[in-house]
């Protein structure tokens, strides 16, 4: 086999590179998606609590 062709070590290098790329993308995505999801949930909860309180105080 020609030394210019891809070797097993090249394939392993490529796979490791893909893993690094996936991690570099996945970590920020998890943080951002998680934060946006949390924002909506927390505000929804606080909004519904405020609505309930105002209903109780103004029957």
């Amino acid at each position, binding site marked *: 086999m020609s*030394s*210019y062709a*891809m*070797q097993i070590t*090249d394939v392993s*290098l*490529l796979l*490791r*590179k*893909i893993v*690094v*790329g*996936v991690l*570099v*993308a996945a*970590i*920020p*995505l998890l*943080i*951002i*998606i998680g*934060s*946006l999801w*949390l*924002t*909506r949930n*927390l*505000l*929804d909860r*606080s*909004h519904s609590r*405020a609505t309930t309180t105002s209903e109780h105080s103004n029957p």
Partner: protein
Amino acid sequence: MKMDLVVKRRLIRNVLLSLLIYALPPALMFAWLYSHGQTPWTHAAAATHPTGLFWKFCQMMKDNGFLVFIFVLGLIEFSLGRYGDEWRGNETVLDIVCFALPRLVFAPFFAWFSVHVLPSIAPREHNLFNWVPFFWGFLILCVADDLTQYWYHRLHHEVPWLWRFHRTHHSAPYMGMSMASRQNAIYTIFFSQTYVTSVLVYLGLGPAAIAVLTIKSFITTLAHSSLPWDKPFYKYKPLHPVAWVLERTISTPATHHAHHAASSDDGVGYYKGNFGNMFFLWDVIFGTAHISRQYPKVYGISHYQGDPWYAQAFWPIFKSNVPGSELAADGPMVRIDERRSTVSEQDALTLLATPGGD
């Protein structure tokens, strides 16, 4: 070749700080919505589409306007002789291939990823966050896209076994608008920030992404350009305060050309840092910044001997036939010049982890 311990520790500290920076725009948005008592997802028309001149400009740039801009910029650079004698033969072919590939092959691939792969993975999450106000979406994407690219880029410099995927971008002995797309195909196709932005667009931050990518394209192209548009800011004293802010915020030709210098020893070049693409702010925050307000005399990699274009564009699928090249089948992972051993011990330690240059 292993990464230096000092570099490794700094990397870990900086990564931890980055996690906080990623969370900052959503956290600020939460505080703003909370203090204003707003729940934008309850409105009938949740998605906010900006209007006005800037938005029209962004749309125009998206519809081939940017292609016209870089074509005109390239013509100006070429007619001013900014590429010098080095831009011929192998280098010309490589630059043209690297310019055409992302537009003709990778763009359809990324479109396929957005249109077919994402909906099949998360069919119900389409436009899940289209309630995010444009301003906040813009801020979230500025950080998400550019900080991710900063890390992708920095890792290819500081992790020795990743360097050869990025070497093509640094091998040119000249600077110019074509340098922005001169990348190894594997490096480009696995660009982490492209996938981050694609996912956020799928989740409903499309308009903000168009605005961010328009601004980013201009900044990164002009930072690679051989036209030193930032020079007047350093030359005229009344403009110095503007220059101070500008060079710490976005990538300028002075700071980014320093990153492409062949040497880090003259106080101007600094290939060991200045990794920022749109924002230089990341380099300032993480301590990888070097500001000199000057332009390097020599660009590229000192031991570069013109590896064939196909090896530079498609390594490791194709290898270089240049003996001793980092891209050759039996070449070193990172090639360090012997004369570097005369520099300080600390510099030598950094060199072990920072490939490229002489």
